């Protein structure tokens, strides 16, 4: 029912694993978890959306906020493992141009300045 959020701290990055639908009801939980990381100026945040079957604009808005906070301290903020329909939300809003999006964690690590 409610969202399951797990933070995994690795050597070179922090992985934020979200499990469940991100909508008007659940996005405040994502916001809280994200802002906790940006407050600590976490240098690299990878948001794992593998287990997110659904996201609406309130979820997207929350991620924009995370990205902006991260940009303030020149951190890296990347989305990984989006399902097709979640990716579509980013495409519909043309935010796929603004977010760094990778097909999985490995691609994010290979491509980024981690």
């Amino acid at each position: 029912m409610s969202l399951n959020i797990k933070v995994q701290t690795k050597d070179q990055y922090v992985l934020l694993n979200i499990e469940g639908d991100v909508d008007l009801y659940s996005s405040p939980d994502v916001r809280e978890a994200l802002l906790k990381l940006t407050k600590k100026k976490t240098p690299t945040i990878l948001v794992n959306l593998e287990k997110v079957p659904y996201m609406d604009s309130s979820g997207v808005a929350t991620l924009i906020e995370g990205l902006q906070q991260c940009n303030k301290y020149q951190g890296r903020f990347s989305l990984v493992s989006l399902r097709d329909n979640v990716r579509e939300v980013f495409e519909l809003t043309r935010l796929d141009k603004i977010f760094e999006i990778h097909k999985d964690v490995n691609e994010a690590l290979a491509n980024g300045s981690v």
Partner: protein
Amino acid sequence: MAKKIEVRITSDPQMLSVLRAAITQVGQLAGFAPMEISKIVLAVDEACSNIMRHAYKGKKNQPIIVTCKLKPTKLEIVMHDFGNSVDVEKIKSRKLNDLRPGGLGVHIMKSIMDRVIFKNGTDEGNFLIMQKALPKRQ
């Protein structure tokens, strides 16, 4: 002989999951492909979230009536609420290159559905009518 399905929820964001499940099945009945269904679900969810946030300003126990009509050539979904009515002219999406959280919902609805018509402030409340042509039968 349109098929009609109505879902009445309260303006509590927890209810969105119930609405999405019902709309997913309506999309299947209408014969849309999975990706199209998930976009229609998104459009309805955005419309409903907006009613919760803007028309009812976060109050959780107000009525929202979602009516789905399967017409011969199109699916019509009407959202009906009795909340605060905003001048239809003011309901518009922001420019997409203005990067800030928010202002995406109306843009999403309009890019998914063929027609999105706001009829706000009528005697019976606010209506939002969304239509999408049915996929062609093979």
